[in-house]
């Protein structure tokens, strides 16, 4: 079974600075998807960025980028020019390519609470 680990329960960053959130995962599959979700105090789960394992190029979405190291099974999220609105819980998630795996369910890490200081 796949597992996802986020080793940083809490992180903080100064406004306008850069922060990196860590995520590691364990799988025996060679093709899969990885995601970062943001959960603000409203509880709404918001997709931040996704990475397809067969693509070597790291995904980027505006100020958000990932460092995907497939051999090391590492998937970190970098937030540049941090803004107050980035304060939230961030979840790393894995999704199997197989529909047989619970309909391609998402397996989540424990989350990292990010605080942005003004």
């Amino acid at each position, binding site marked *: 079974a796949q597992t996802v680990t986020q080793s940083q329960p809490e992180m903080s960053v100064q406004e306008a600075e850069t922060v990196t959130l860590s995520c590691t995962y364990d799988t025996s599959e060679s093709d*899969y998807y990885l995601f970062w979700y943001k959960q603000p105090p409203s509880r709404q789960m918001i997709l931040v960025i996704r990475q397809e394992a067969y693509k070597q190029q790291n995904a980027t979405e505006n100020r958000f980028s990932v460092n995907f190291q497939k051999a090391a099974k590492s998937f970190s999220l970098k937030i540049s020019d941090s803004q107050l609105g980035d304060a939230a819980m961030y979840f790393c998630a894995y999704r199997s*390519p197989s529909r047989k795996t619970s309909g391609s369910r998402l397996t989540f*890490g*424990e989350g990292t609470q990010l605080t942005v200081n003004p």
Partner: protein
Amino acid sequence: DAGITQSPRYKITETGRQVTLMCHQTWSHSYMFWYRQDLGHGLRLIYYSAAADITDKGEVPDGYVVSRSKTENFPLTLESATRSQTSVYFCASSLAGGPGNEQFFGPGTRLTVL
């Protein structure tokens, strides 16, 4: 309103009572999912459904029942609520089951079992 909605948003109940959490989506997505969120565990899959009348267990199904008579609705029932089922419950849907299909989440239901 379009999208995925959950009701109620907050619910307090007592041990042993039956509780049903509702989930409704307007996109005609085939797949729907129920997750629970607990501190230290992230979100864990309870049940999922690939289409109307097709449901299957996820990672933590014990104590829960689901049904899906219509594509747009996917209710989750706690037949006899226990304190360990105090949690935040999220419903999600996706167009299809492939991994590239984004899962869209509802706003969540905070359930407290006394």
